[in-house]
Every structure is written in C-alpha cells, then in structure tokens.
C-alpha cells in the first residue's frame, strides 16, 4: 500500500512533466503562436518586437524558455502574456467555483445514476424500465450547452425560478450557493446519469444471476440487504473507475461548456479563453492542474477499487 502510493506519486511527476512539455511544444509550433507579435499590438516596429522578445526571453532556446516558465509556475510568478495577470492567482480565484461545480455534480450524478440503474435493473423488461431507458438515452444524447442554455433560458430567465448565471461562494451564503448551482449541476450531470445508469443496470443484471446472490437470499436476508450488500457492492466496482476519471476531469477544469453556458468563471472557462488568445502560461498551468487531478483521482480509484474487491492487490 505505502509502496503503491509512492509509486503513484512518482508516476504523477512523470505525467506532469510529459503533459507540460507537450503543451509547451504545441503552442510553440502553432502558426501565429509568437507571443511577442500579439503583445506588441497592431503594426509593431521591429525594434519594439526585439525588446519584447528580450524582456520576456522569447529569443532564448525553447528548453530554456520551458524551464523558466516552469520555474515561474512553481514559484507562483507566472504571468499571462495577454493580460499580464498572475496565472496562479487567477486560477486560485476560480478554484472555488470549479470545485463547487465538480463536487456537487459528481455527487449528484453518482447518486441519481445509482438509484436509476438499480431501479431499472430490478424492473428490467417492465414498462417503467423501458420509459426510464428512453429517458436515459435522451440524457446521453443531449449536448450540455444546449440543455444548459435551455434551462438557463426557461427556468432562469423566463420563469425566474432559478438565478440566471452568477455564483455565490459557499462561505458567504450556503443556501444561495446551492441555489445558484442547481442548474449547472443538473446540466452537467444529465449526460453522466444517462451513461452511468445504463452501465450499472447491465452490471446489476449480471450480478443478479450470480450464485452468491442466491445464497444471500437463501440465508433469509431482507431483499434490501441482498440488493445493497451483495448486488450493488459488486456491481459498483466498474462504475467507480468511470466515476474517478470523470470526476478528476471535471475537477481539473474539464467542464468547460457548463462553465461557459452558466458563465461561472471557473477554471475551465479561463483555459478556454486563454486558448483563444494562444496565451501559453494559463493554458500550461491549467493543463497541469487538470492532469494532477486526473492522476490523483485515478490513484484514489485504485485504492477504493482494492477496498471494494479484495482480490485486487495494489502493487
């Protein structure tokens, strides 16, 4: 176990390194990627360009630039090329928003998907199962930006039931925080609920025909206990992997569309805007930030996995 964690940490370093190098290189070879050109404004004169290059170190070899940038990133001094704001501070400002969105949505989609998956599996073949199946498929096929926009328009703008965009930090007013996030959570969760509940349904159906479920019934356990302790636990094992990956991605700023539709000003939205500007520092920082969470969650998933299924040894 301890060895496992150490190994994962080491591999995380490797991943972060690879991701950062890749991001950096990509932005260096994109046509029009020369940051000096953008900084100098319209029709710059060569001398000015030269100065900018010298000031920012753009004239140095790529690996030196990379090392410098990374050094600045880790000492928190990295600034954006376009807005000249401190990147780490900017991400820090948005962190609460993205985390609020991700954690809430992840809990929401897991809870709903579990309930829905279990219910449809138990009622497999009946009318309620078929209707919910259709609903799940609809959920899967609706794009987030579209659902989000619809909800925003009808529930927020027209009906006024929910606030239209905006964000209230949890520390300021928890109820308002919740109230403001319900729509984004729902929009983000719909797809996941659809997918997860389908996967769970088929896992539960498989598990129900296992011999040990029969044994559990033969012991005289209540049906509820049979379902929760024996069926659900075994069916959840594969879902946990999916969940960890998706949760990691959303935490790391992957919910770009949702953030944009509800104008949450989260990390995802930040990176989207920066990509637009071909602004390397924020993109690099957010990419590493995202990769960090994905690897972290992956490790957590593996540990949870080993707890759920003792046949798996962590090495």
């Amino acid at each position: 176990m301890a060895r496992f964690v150490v190994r994962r940490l080491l591999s995380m370093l490797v991943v972060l390194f690879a991701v950062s190098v890749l991001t950096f290189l990509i932005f260096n070879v994109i046509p029009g990627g020369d940051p000096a050109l953008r900084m100098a404004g319209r029709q710059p004169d060569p001398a000015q360009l030269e100065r900018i290059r010298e000031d920012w170190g753009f004239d140095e070899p790529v690996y030196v630039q990379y090392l410098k940038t990374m050094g600045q990133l880790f000492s928190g001094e990295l600034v954006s090329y376009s807005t000249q704001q401190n990147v780490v501070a900017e991400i820090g400002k948005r962190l609460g928003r993205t985390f609020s969105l991700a954690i809430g949505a992840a809990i929401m989609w897991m809870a709903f998907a579990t309930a829905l998956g279990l219910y449809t599996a138990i009622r497999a073949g009946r009318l309620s199962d078929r209707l919910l199946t259709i609903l799940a498929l609809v959920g899967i096929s609706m794009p987030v930006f579209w659902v989000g926009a619809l909800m925003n328009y009808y529930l927020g703008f027209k009906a006024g039931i929910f606030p239209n965009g905006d964000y209230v930090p949890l520390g300021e007013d928890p109820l308002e925080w919740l109230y403001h996030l319900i729509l984004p959570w729902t929009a983000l969760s719909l797809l996941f609920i659809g997918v997860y509940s389908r996967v769970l349904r088929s896992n539960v159906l498989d598990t129900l025909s296992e011999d040990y479920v029969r044994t559990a019934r033969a012991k005289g356990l209540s049906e509820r206990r049979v379902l929760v302790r024996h069926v659900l636990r075994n069916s959840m094992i594969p879902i946990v992997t999916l969940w960890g990956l998706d949760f990691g991605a959303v935490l790391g700023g992957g919910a770009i569309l949702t953030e944009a539709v509800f104008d949450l000003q989260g990390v995802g939205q930040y990176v989207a805007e920066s990509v637009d500007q071909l602004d390397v520092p924020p993109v690099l920082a957010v990419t590493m930030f995202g990769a960090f969470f994905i690897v972290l969650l992956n490790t957590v998933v593996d540990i949870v996995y080993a707890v759920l299924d003792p046949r798996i040894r962590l090495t």
Partner: protein
Amino acid sequence: MSVKAEPGPGDIRRTGASKPLVEVRHLKVFFPIRQGFLVEREVGRVHAVNDVTLGIEQGETLGLVGESGCGKTTLSRAIMRLVDPTKGSIRFRGEDITEAGRRRLEPMRREMQMVFQDPFASLNPRKRVGQIIRMPLRLHGAPRDEAPDRVRELLRRVGLHPEHANRYPHEFSGGQRQRIGVARALALEPSLIVLDEPVSALDVSVQAQIINLLDDLQDDMGLTYLFVAHDLSVVRHISDRIAVMYLGKLMEVSPAQELYSKPIHPYTSALLTAIPIPDPEANRRRGRVAAGGGGTPRGGVAVVGGEPPNPVDPPSGCVFHPRCPRATELCREVEPPLARYRGGHLAACHHPLNVSREETVATTRDPSSPLSAGDVLPDGAAAEGSLGTS
C-alpha cells in the same frame, strides 16, 4: 528391464528416451498473508505447493489426488502458468516457461488447456454457451463458418444437446456447466489438458461417458492429461500413474493399479480406507461415518483423524507425522526423501507399508525428492512395522 537411463523425474513409465511433455522441478508456490492497512507486513505464507518435482510424459494421464487444500489446484494452475511460482522451474516440451511472459505463452496456450474446478466462475455469464465454446476456436483462427458445426459436435460429445448452445451459463445444472468447461477445453485439440475435478458434479453414468470420451480422445489424438480428482475410483480408471499430495508435497507416486494394491505411504493407505463403498450392508459393517472419520482400524492403519494441518506453518520432519499412526521420533525430526521402490514406485515415508525387507533395503533416494528432505532412507527393520500400531 535393464534400462540404465539417468533416473530423471517422471521417467517411471514409458522409459523411452523422449522428454516428458511437462516437467516440474522443485516447484514452490507460496501465498503471502499480509496484514495492516497503510503499511502491510507479511505475517506468514501459505505453503500451497512446497517443492514438488514431477514429469508428465506425452500421451500419459497423471492422476493427482490428495486432501482438500493440499495444493492440487495451485499446482495445476502453476503448470498452466496461471499463478506465478515462487521457486523452481516448469518446462513444457523442454522449454523453460517459468519466466515466460504473456507473449511467449500465447502460442502455448493453445496447446495447454484447463478445465477449472469451479465451472460456473470460469464461464462468462453474459455470453451464450455457444459463444463461449466458439471463442477459443475463433481466437486461434478457425474458419468462421466451421465454428458452429464444431460447437454442436463438441456439445454432443460431452453429452449436451446442440440446442443448448443458445443458453446462458446460469441456465445449466452443475454437471452441465462442468461439461461445458470440458467442451471448451477440447475445442482446440490441445496436447495437454489439465482437468481439475472435471467429473465431480456428474452422475456416475455421465461420469463414465466423459471418462470414456477422454479415454477415446487420448487414443485418437495422443492427448496428455493431468487429472485432479477426489474420487479415487475414477482416478484409478483413467490414470497411468497417480501422484498423492499432502500439504503441498508429494507423498507417493505410483503406477495406477499398484497404488491400490500396494499403497506404501500411510497417508495413501488412509485415503484408500476412507473410500465410501456403494453397498449399504458393507458400509454398515465398516462404520466409516459413525466413527466421525477417525479411528476405524483396518489393515493396521486407521482412517486419518486429527486436526487438518496448517499450511502456513507446516509440521517439521514428515508433514504427515501429526496424524500418522506409524510416526516416530525420526518422523518428527527428519523429512523423508522420496524413496524409489521397484517398478518406479516412489514414496516419502520412513516407515513404509506393504514392502518387504529386501525391497526396502534396495531403495534409493529419488532425485525428485524435496531439497529439504534428509538422506535417511527407510531400512528393512522399520519396514516390517515393528514401530507401527499394528
């Protein structure tokens, strides 16, 4: 016979110069027992297979019997390279596969198939039985249109109906599941089939059919079997040689018939005495069960009673000594080597049964003995049973 070939492991029968198909040398498989959450410590090791050396000749059937939990499945799985050996080596057709990785094993997988002890757990619950049997055929490139015929043929051969191909595994009875496992293993016509209790869930008539089928296939295609079973009468029928295991070690290896007429190891003898006889009157006279599985003397040896052994901390000396009616101080201290008797009969016991003084005196230490075994060979005096309970 005056064959003076190097007495390697498993050259007991078919003394031809051919190399055995499978050769296992000083194989050990230990399972660590870990405790603790964040920092796990190894608190002990299950000695599932503990220094086993044996060979299986091409075309031969080696029966493997022994107490439940003595390591038969683990040994079989190690030969299939489904568990990693802790020590020792495994050779298949002379090639060392102890360390072989997935890629090198790939072509060999086709040649060695296993019928698992747990028929249901080894069948994919989502796949129809037809697909399960067809899978290995397809993986190894059988033409697509031939496969369904082949599946039907295989199902028929193991005594199932071809229309069963469309069912899912959970829709079969225990014995039917077991036969599906057999059909799947036969699909590729491998050269070695490891059968882990392949007929234990079958009624005697179907059992007989399957055994006869295995027999026929062996005659037709020269198959080699490792046959693990508890049913000693079935083992006798199908095997050329039988190996008796106890607590991870080989106790006795013998030509099949001889094991029954002349068991040398007290454990083997105890096993044979414990066989239930399908005759109510005879049983009542014998009273095996009434005695709780212990203590009915018969032919000088009691049915094994006593505590089952602990594979984490195996007894010193002869692993069977705590339950052996013939045990002496020597047995507690010195592990007996596998001694070689006439006719290639091996047994690891200081106080052998059913052998004459001359035979005992003539024994030699077999090279397949465990490395930890001593050099003390049984002597004639002891063999006559003066130390026994007779």
